[in-house]
């Protein structure tokens, strides 16, 4: 599992997401506005499949690529992923 994603390292996930997206759409990460739908940078449904797979591996979560369709910006994705991480660790602890 990746580093804890709360508190001071809260931006770690967001930064990582933007960096990976930048690789998929072949642009510098700095150009990725965290509130702009990623489709506008050319992250289409095909690229989304590969990108979400990387997110799954990085965070050790099971995700459907449609998570990106429902949460199409870095900030929205960041928020929903944190929720998923939190509920996944609840399950781990109760198990």
């Amino acid at each position, binding site marked *: 599992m990746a580093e804890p994603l709360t508190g001071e390292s809260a931006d770690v996930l967001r930064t990582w997401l933007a960096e990976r997206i930048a690789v*998929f759409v*072949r642009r510098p990460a700095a150009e990725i506005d965290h509130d702009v*739908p990623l489709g506008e940078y050319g992250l289409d449904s*095909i*690229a989304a499949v590969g990108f979400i*797979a990387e997110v799954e591996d990085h965070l050790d979560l*099971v995700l*459907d690529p449609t998570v*990106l*369709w429902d949460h199409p910006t870095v900030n929205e994705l960041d928020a929903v992923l944190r929720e998923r991480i939190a509920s996944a660790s609840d399950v781990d602890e109760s198990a």
Partner: protein
Amino acid sequence: MNARGRMEKLEQSLGDPADPGSPLGFAAILAADERAEMFAEGERALDAYGLNAEFVPPEYGGRLTRLDDLAEIMQSVYRRDPCLGLGYGTSSFIAAVNVWTSADDEHRRTVAGLLLGNRRVASAYHELAHGNDMGRTEFEAMPGRGGLVLNGRKEVVTNIQRADALVMFARTDRRQGSRSHSQILVEKEGLAEGGLRYLPRFPSVGMRGVQLGGVEFRDCLIPGDSVLGTAGHGLEVAMRSFQITRTLLPAMMVGILDTGLRTAVGHALSRRLYGGVAADLPEVRSTLVGAFADLLACDCFGLVCARALHLLPRQTSVLAAAAKYAMSGVMSEAMHRLSIVLGAQSYLREGENGIFQKLMRDLLPVGFGHAARAACQMTILPQLPMLARRSWSTADPAPAGLFRQDADLPPVPFAQLSVTAGGQDSLSAGLAGVLEATSAGADRDERRVRDLAGRFLAELRELTETCADLPPGERTFAAGSDAYDLASRYTAVLMAAACLETWRHNRDDPFLGNPAWLIAALGRHAGRLDGRTPELPEDVEKTLYAELLDRHEKGVSFGLSSRRFAGGSR
């Protein structure tokens, strides 16, 4: 009536197509094709049989219980007239599958009612401006005037004019993104006058009888509750429901190759050349046996993928794309080689072999219709790294039921079909299973099977290494042709695994249990992968040639199930 009974009944009601006196035979089918009309007698016969009920799940009054059976039933239609296959059958089936996948109970009842009343429902996705690029669809259904207002065009769509209802892929949100489209159900009865205009028909090279049309809507109001399922989920519904139709269409079209091969065998046996018949020439025999082996491989892959939709619905985003890609390639090539056996006869539009040229034209859309082959590769490509890392060396083999015609299958799990396979592939895991189940010290045929399994397993290992770290840029539309090639090599591995596992799980079957068919099918398949002309062992070719002649003589299908067709050969 069980499915075998229905297949028999459909065959009997359509009769022997090669009988020159049959009102439902090739002569009449060709005449309708010459006029670029649907074959009216054939449509009446299918009405009488109630073919549409095969597309409707039992809870809505139909007979859609197993997709492998549906593929075989439709082979009986496609082997006679692919225009009936598409223009009577699969156009409505594609629309219906969208409805079963996403719609609420009321919409399902409406569409089931239309189909069971022998009506047609067209599936209108395509716009000339966008081709396979569905996400750019412009035709829109926007809220307004107390309902939905339709604007825009659909073009080159089967039955758009004569259908009673349309399932249309429409933009329902002007924003970019993947939640901006929906399927809508448009019933023509009660539509406002003047809201819709039909475009002239699109004449075509093949499927000439199929009425390819277009429509333009202008500010046409339809009821607000016309969206199928959740608004905005159209792209997802398409990606999920098309897994069924992209698997089934090529599996049904195996019937075309069956008649192509039947025609070529008939010709080669009767054509006198050099003091014998054409079939005496070893080269001609090899071509016929090769096409037979290719047909068996396609039928096998198609039926396995059809059962996978029941048993492994989370994996079929990959399998459906692989089925469409691999089967369309192999079948088109096989048909081309058969045309060489027929020579000039493959070019004549009338007479005993006249059906061949029509079938050859009608087969072509298997490659580009309902998703281009390249689009199928593109579905697989971004999933390769996940598959490599999560499955290829570790997955458990698929359940035995995937490979047996007598397996119990659960109802089609429409709701479980997923946008991606999540890196899961239990079909290719069967390669290692076959290696374990065979021994190097066994008889010659088993050693051959083992070698072939080893060849495809080595291919999978190579793919695993290359794909595990495929760079992001090679997993998007920007990918180079080497990356597309990886996807097609993987489809070859999946097809081989389907054949090997089918043999392994049917060793009690007199035909399937004898490895001759498998050695021929995979020998050819390995040859294609290695880019050389495959030569089959002499004894294998001899066994298959005898089987081919026997089936031809008795009028038995060339596919896996060896079922009896109506009439028998000429």
